[in-house]
């Protein structure tokens, strides 16, 4: 061994191995040599005799669980339905989850019988993984499988901790067991990450995928739709803080979870992963809270006081999201509320909302929005003539009032001419030409009418 090591050292191989864990823990760098010396045993000694650590685990509320596939560590927690996590009650999942049926329908279009199974409160399994790396490659190892579900009015959390890779099959078997009676998997980015990664783990442990797996209720896409323009980030922690009224205290950053697990692997001390277990449990609770929140929105149950706190961007996100999920009647009040707003950047939202009404043929709703947008354009340093053009078209073709149309068309032309040429408005010249033609046509029409 020493000869090989010496050769590798001479070739500069040490430290190039890309063990990202070392860079994540600067405090360990100082005792680099000590780590290497100690690591001589750490890498080879099998993880602690589980029995010797049971006390440490018990202190964390966890104990060894066994099934036909072996053992793993299971930590169970139970919350009564009245428990509030942030602003929502966990018990509200009972009615909120079924309201997310349109979301699951959209996400499971490829599944064989998508709409046959609505996400009943007890049919949904919440899942959140803690893994050793990024991506869904075969070397990314999910060492903690966090599960949560409603059962007889109680919200139950089960955390499957894999003390060493040999315990993986037993933990996966437990997961399959929990999935057996449930139809939906609720996650945050689980369609792209958690479930593909688990599929890979099943294959690596000798299972072959049969059927299509669970139906997805991935809460990331709706969160993006709602808050992409409203929040600086659509990460779960940002949503919690800004919309779910949850504050995390003493929480470890999720990105450090692998580092704590690697430390645990070195000496087997459960204390290293206490923070990871707590973090994962909070993620599961936040996921449930987010599901309630989204369910309320989907059901049109956000109260007026609540929407009043929202920005126009968020109103637009929620309204468009409801439209996309076949809930236009829930969206209508949000669009109306949006029309009454007066915020910086409103032009864009007014135009979008008006466009939605126009497509429904609701010109009574669209016209006031265009008029409001046109007024904003008149005041703007970089006036966009779109609202004027819409109004010109409306008056010319709907109202058959070329005189009114001409007023708007001429204003559009003036605004368009005022657009600074150098600011990337590449469509400006062509657009100006179109407006000019419209103005001429309207003038001809008017002249013809006069004759």
């Amino acid at each position: 061994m020493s000869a090989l090591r010496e050769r590798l050292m001479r070739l500069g191989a040490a430290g190039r191995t890309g063990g990202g864990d070392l860079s994540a823990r600067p405090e360990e760098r100082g005792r680099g040599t000590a780590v290497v010396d100690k690591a001589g045993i750490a890498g080879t000694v099998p993880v602690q005799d589980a029995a010797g650590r049971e006390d440490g685990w018990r202190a964390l509320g966890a104990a060894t669980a066994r099934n036909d596939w072996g053992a793993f560590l299971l930590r169970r927690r139970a919350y009564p339905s009245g428990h509030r996590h942030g602003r929502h009650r966990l018990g509200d999942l009972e009615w909120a989850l079924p309201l997310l049926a349109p979301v699951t329908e959209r996400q499971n279009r490829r599944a064989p019988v998508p709409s046959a199974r609505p996400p009943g409160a007890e049919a949904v399994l919440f899942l959140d993984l803690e893994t050793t790396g990024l991506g869904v490659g075969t070397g990314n190892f999910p060492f903690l499988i966090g599960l949560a579900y409603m059962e007889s009015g109680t919200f139950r959390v089960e955390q499957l901790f894999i003390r060493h890779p040999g315990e993986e099959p037993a933990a996966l078997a437990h997961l399959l067991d929990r999935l057996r009676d449930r139809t939906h998997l609720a996650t945050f980015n689980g369609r792209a990450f958690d479930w593909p990664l688990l599929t890979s783990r099943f294959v690596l442990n000798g299972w072959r995928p049969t059927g299509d797996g669970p139906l997805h209720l991935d809460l990331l896409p709706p969160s993006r739709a709602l808050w992409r323009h409203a929040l600086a980030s659509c990460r779960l922690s940002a949503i919690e803080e800004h919309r779910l009224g949850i504050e995390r205290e003493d929480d470890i950053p999720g990105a450090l979870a692998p580092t704590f697990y690697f430390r645990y692997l070195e000496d087997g001390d459960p204390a290293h992963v206490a923070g990871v277990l707590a973090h994962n449990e909070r993620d599961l609770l936040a996921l449930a809270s987010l599901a309630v929140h989204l369910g309320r929105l989907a059901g049109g149950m956000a109260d007026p006081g609540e929407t009043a706190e929202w920005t126009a961007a968020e109103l637009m996100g929620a309204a468009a999201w409801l439209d996309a999920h076949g809930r236009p009647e829930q969206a209508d009040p949000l669009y109306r509320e949006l029309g009454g707003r007066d915020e910086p950047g409103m032009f864009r939202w007014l135009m979008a909302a008006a466009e939605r009404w126009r497509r429904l043929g609701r010109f009574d709703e669209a016209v006031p929005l265009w008029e409001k947008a046109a007024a904003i354009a008149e005041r703007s340093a970089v006036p966009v003539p779109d609202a004027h053009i819409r109004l010109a078209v409306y008056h010319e073709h709907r109202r058959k009032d070329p005189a009114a149309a001409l007023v708007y068309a001429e204003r559009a032309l003036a605004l368009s001419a005022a657009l600074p040429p150098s600011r990337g408005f590449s469509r400006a010249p062509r657009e100006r030409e179109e407006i000019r033609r419209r103005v001429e046509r309207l003038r001809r029409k008017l002249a013809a009418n006069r004759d």
Partner: protein
Amino acid sequence: MNRWTGRAASVEEWIADFRRRPEFMANVTHWHTTPARPARTAPFPEELHPKLAGGLGRKGIASLYTHQAEAFSAARAGEHFVVVTPTASGKTLCYNLPVLQRILEDDSARALYLFPTKALAQDQVAELQELANLMDVDIKTHTYDGDTPPEVRRVVRLAGHIVVTNPDMLHSAILPHHTKWVKLFENLKYVVIDELHAYRGVFGSHVANVIRRLKRICRFYGSRPQFLCASATIRNPKEHAQRLLEEPVRLIDDNGAPSGERHFVFYNPPLVNRQLGIRASSVLETQKIAADLLRSGIQTIVFARSRVRMEILLTYLQELIRKDFGPKTIRGYRGGYLPRQRREIERGLRSGEIRGVVSTNALELGIDIGELQACVINGYPGSVASTLQQSGRAGRRRGSSVTILVAGSNPLDQFLVRHPEFFFGLTPEEARIDPDNLLILLDQLKCAAYELPFEAGETFGAESLEDMLEFLAQERVVHQAGNRWHWMAQAFPANNVSLRTAAPENFVIIDITEGHRVIGEVDRFSAPTLIHEEAIYIHEGVQYQVEKLDYPEKKAYVRQVNVDYFTDANVAVDLKVLHADLEEADGPLSRQYGEIAVTARTTVFKKIRLRTHENIGSGPIHLPEEELHTSGCWFAFADEAFGGRNETERQTALMGVSNVLGRLASLHLMCDPFDIRVVPQVKAVHTKRPTIFFYDRYPGGIGLSRKLFDLYAELFREGERLIAGCGCENGCPSCVGPADETGERGKELALELIRRALSEVPA
């Protein structure tokens, strides 16, 4: 010959005319003619699927060449094989037939095709699809590479019968995600590896490990694919394939394809100064011959050794031919051109629209450019295999073809052009790999551990697996649990391991003459010499000057210029012995082998006038140095080898010997001259004596220096013969170097040193 237009009616006529022209024939040192050879065929095998026979029939194929029939039966018998036959001998059918047959018999069967480049992969898919269409069957062939859109990738993974990809993609995208490819790996019957000879050196050593990983994953899924390979001519195809695959491999090299008459002409540019041994420029002679061919209407390919030379030749030829042809009919071709541009040139060559192409060795690989009639090679390409590959570009199944090798003035070229029998007697080079190079093995082991945990009792390469895993455990990237080692780190190791030394770190070249336009790219190792600031970068015959080299961002900003010079950069090499593993001495000559560290820094560049090639100026280059840890072999000369010569004389002698040995080394090691480097040191720190160092130009070494340690006597004797036999008076570029560089008595002193050094070397 049409007396009015100067056009030849055929290559035959051009050759006959050439033979009558004394200004050319005076410089021809050898004319080798290979007579035409008829086809040898075999009927379709009885078991050949009727649909396959039908498809071939519609393609106009009624029987197989003998080597194709042999490949088919070998594959059916479950053997791994490697086919080695020349260009245009129907090599692809050797592997396509058994693969298609198997898929026709069993729709769940899968095959994986590996090509060294994306372009070759795309050619192949087109060919397979054409055949599938002719057979009227639904065989799904897909490329899977960096350009494959995500939504298509899913389809390829689940439903592709034949997945065509490259080793880099297999390494970084397929193997680390093998669980998404269950269908492929469970049903993998054949792995096709074409252009096997391209997998040599560091690249080949990595690919051998990627194949170890592939086989490991196949074992996991319970499949055991057969390897069907094809290679250009190399000395050791069977051994190379076996080394790469670590399986017994059958060699199929009995070529049944016909070929037309082929002429191979050795051409030595005339001496312009006999005393100084100076010859006319090989570039200008190449240009003269190529222009003559092109004017005669013969489709011609010109090969040049370097990118700069290629561009200079292109510039000259385009100027010369402009009045005869349009500018787009003579094109350049090399690695740095963008893919779209290269596809366009390949198409133009096939259709005949492009009459001439000047290329680097980039066109050596089996890219389909049709059958050209003539090939002019500027300077010995460095290996017999390359020479044959380049010459094979002008080779047709019917009708004659001609290759003219125009020798350069360096010792290696001069040696070959004067001893053509040596060239024709020479077997082509070996493809050498060292899959157990410690650094490569370690990197690949990490990738393998990421893909599947290792179990006690497994093997991976020649080193003790357990020791290596223990090392990785200490590096905290694997974790042992019981008798298994698991990858346990946040990193995705394949991202940090590149199969080709320079691939992921190319510099892009941005033309800022008008706006910003990317016109090409250059690999990291060539960047300091090709695109330093003020360098003249030539692209498709157009000159650009580098205005700014953004080294950290890997971008070079160039502007179009029109100047009458090109630039050439000098590299200063410093070298330090880290560890000597072997040591032997024969009297005054002692030799050692071990590990060395080489630092290279580009220091100055010269401006060289076009056409006259005179030095007209220079400038400094300020760029960071590159460090290389590799293996080396060095020769130290004791005092008695110099027989009381003074310091200057010793230096002259050492330089001369180093020049000669450096050039000849690649010939004896059967490698590319770029793979091994030589550095003389008048007083080396390690040996305290005048010393000549050789080193492998790859991190960790690829075994060349080690071989030199054993072969040294042959090399020194050949060097002695070359110096003694050279016709010049005091040294010339063809032996120890020109007198104005090595000194007035360079030849005499070098000869004296090499003879004394050999005095006690056993015969």
